[in-house]
């Protein structure tokens, strides 16, 4: 009996000691926020990313592994703006974790800290899959990443007060490196101003706004509906009078429609990684924008 008590005491001490060193458990909805949390949290955070760059975040289901990860998460770092409305609320409801519910500090929505583009005047499903809060793909402007980083750094400090100085230092360091990188990118991206492009889906709006690209058409007839032959033919006809320099698509988009238009209009397809992990080069937020700019500049001539 005494031996059992000793064992239990030892186990309890071990667990207590272990929990002091334990990292902040973070469930990131998309790879870009996972990368940002890793930059700001360093080795004090343990990040699991729910989706990969090869997956369309609209089509994800609340599968068992996400519910299990949600159960132990201290922080859920997502975009918000209804991007994850098909699965995140279910993960929150079924995880039995009071910390990540709506309104709690453990629920972080990046879109709240940036100015939304394309907020619809009228909400109607006949317009396709529109988001009431505006275009949710906010991570594609580095100025937005900066704003979110400030808020995320504060949130990490709020959730894990003992490590607050560490998070603050890392946030400041990140912001400094980021601002230098942004200045470099803006200088290099001067030739891209006004370049006309066709996009597969309206998920590049923040990138286009930042770089000054002109989106002259979309492959999807309406947001969320797959490209149709009639719509593509109409787009091809329009491009004859109003030409574009390239067709942009994300790594997870269907290549067929972009290839079709590219061959007939004689313009190249640019496959952008869209988020961290979209290709071999985009391994973190810095290399993501480096790679996207390199690819865009290669067709800007």
């Amino acid at each position, binding site marked *: 009996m005494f031996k059992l008590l000793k064992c239990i005491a030892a186990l309890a001490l071990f667990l207590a000691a272990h929990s002091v060193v334990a990292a902040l458990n973070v469930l990131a909805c998309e790879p870009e926020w996972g990368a940002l949390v890793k930059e700001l949290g360093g080795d004090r955070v343990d990040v699991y990313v729910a989706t990969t760059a090869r997956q369309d975040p609209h*089509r994800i289901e609340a599968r068992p592994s996400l519910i*299990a990860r949600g159960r132990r998460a201290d922080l859920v770092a997502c975009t918000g703006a209804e991007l994850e409305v098909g699965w995140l609320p*279910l993960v929150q409801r079924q995880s039995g974790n009071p910390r990540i519910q709506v309104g709690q500090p453990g629920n972080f929505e990046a879109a709240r800290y940036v100015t939304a583009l394309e907020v619809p005047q009228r909400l109607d499903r006949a317009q396709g899959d529109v988001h009431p809060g505006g275009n949710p793909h906010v991570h594609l402007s580095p100025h937005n990443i900066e704003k979110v980083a400030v808020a995320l750094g504060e949130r990490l400090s709020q959730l894990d007060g003992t490590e607050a100085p560490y998070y603050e230092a890392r946030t400041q360091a990140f912001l400094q490196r980021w601002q230098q990188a942004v200045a470099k990118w803006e200088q290099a991206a001067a030739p891209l101003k006004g370049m006309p492009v066709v996009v597969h889906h309206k998920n590049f709006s923040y990138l286009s706004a930042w770089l000054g690209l002109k989106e002259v058409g979309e492959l999807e007839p309406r947001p969320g509906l797959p490209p149709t032959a009639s719509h593509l033919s109409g787009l091809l006809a329009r491009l004859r009078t109003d030409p574009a320099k390239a067709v942009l698509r994300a790594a997870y988009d269907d290549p067929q429609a972009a290839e079709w238009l590219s061959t007939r209009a004689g313009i190249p397809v640019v496959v952008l990684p869209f988020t961290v992990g979209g290709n071999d080069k985009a391994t973190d937020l810095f290399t993501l924008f480096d790679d996207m700019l390199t690819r865009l500049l290669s067709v800007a001539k």
Partner: protein
Amino acid sequence: MFKRKLIAAAIALACAGPAPAQDAELAKIREEITQMKEVYESRINALEKRLAEAEAKAGKGERGAASAETAAASASRRTGENAFNPAISLILQGTYADTSQDPETYQITGFVPSGGEVGPPKRSFGLGESELNIWANIDPYFQGRFTAALTPDNEAEVEEAYVQTLALPSGFIAKGGRFFSGLGYLNPLHQHAWDFQDAPLPYKAFLGGQLKQDGVQLKWIAPTDLLIEFGVELSAGDQFPGSDQGRNGIGGSTVFAHVGGDIGRSTAWRAGLSYLDISPKDRSYDDVDAFGMPTVNSFTGKSKLWVADAVLKWAPDGDATRTNFKLQGEYFRRKEDGEITYDDSGGSALFGPVAGAFDTRQSGWYLQGVYQFAPRWRLGYRYDRLSFGTVNNGIVQSSLGPVAADFPVLTPYSPSRNTVMLDWSPSEFSRLRLQYTADKSRIGITDDQFIVQYIYSLGAHGAHGF
């Protein structure tokens, strides 16, 4: 000569430089110029400052206007009593059916009828159930959900009306009210989310279509990377296979456990085991005797049901947009022990109410696969089968009067079905389905059912379960 010297001296004197009086004047002029410069400079500075401030104000004004616009826009959407309105969605469904047998004569031979609406849809055009869902967070501690099914016969059935906790610690979730039991895989999902127009045979035979509980449920999710969850439900036990008992205490209980996870990035799976324990009292069904006259049989005893379920979903790289595959199956095993009472007083009145021991060991299973081969198209196939097992009818075995022919529903027979379906979903809110079933639920008959079904959803679109 002297004159010249005099003029030269005068010129020299004149050129000797300005007089001190002229010096002072120059200095004065210089001072005045400097003063003017300073005054003008300070005025220009002041003007520039004012210009800068005015520009900044204009910029702020613009931003202020923009943010006021968005604030006004969002505020206009969120003021007044309606600001906290719940999410509302309406599902519209309907069918066109062509069946070789009359749906009114539908029966699963070999199994006690479950009393639910388990038959095929009515022939020709028919409206399905219109499902109204309303849900919202109630306060920081609870959320609520309501689902009403409005049947084409103008009845409103409450399918779900429950309250669930949001903030219990340590992975607990409690639910109370009326809800679909967490038993099995298909049972907690709404019918409009199923991959076929109807429930599989084991659901029709053992659960009356879908088991609803009036009671409470407690779930616990383990803090592990693999999903491990346990649940227990206590209910009044008045839905089939239970019966309305008018008794104090707990009429039925359910326990279930689920395990689930990922295999790589492309595959997700979940397996579960459930157990239902319920004690029906005077659970009756209508039958006919050997002469075709009506009889009523009722069962009192214990009913125990085991369900094992598994589901596997695959998509290339985990992206289900273009192609994906879902494989799913469940196995049911039911044990009933108790007493059966045969009553032909409403018909032939040959024997009057006769009672005898009654125990059954019956099982069933189904396996279905659905493959999405193009962004909006899916093809599915399902095989269901029930096994008659053993049915020991004490009334017949003890020769108390009625014979096996007086229990036609319980004729030994193992029903099976083959179903194939093709559906087209132009968006995630609309679906059109074509389904063919070769239905051998009735002994000796194959019912060829062709069904066209539509499912449309309006309003908020809640997330569906895995």
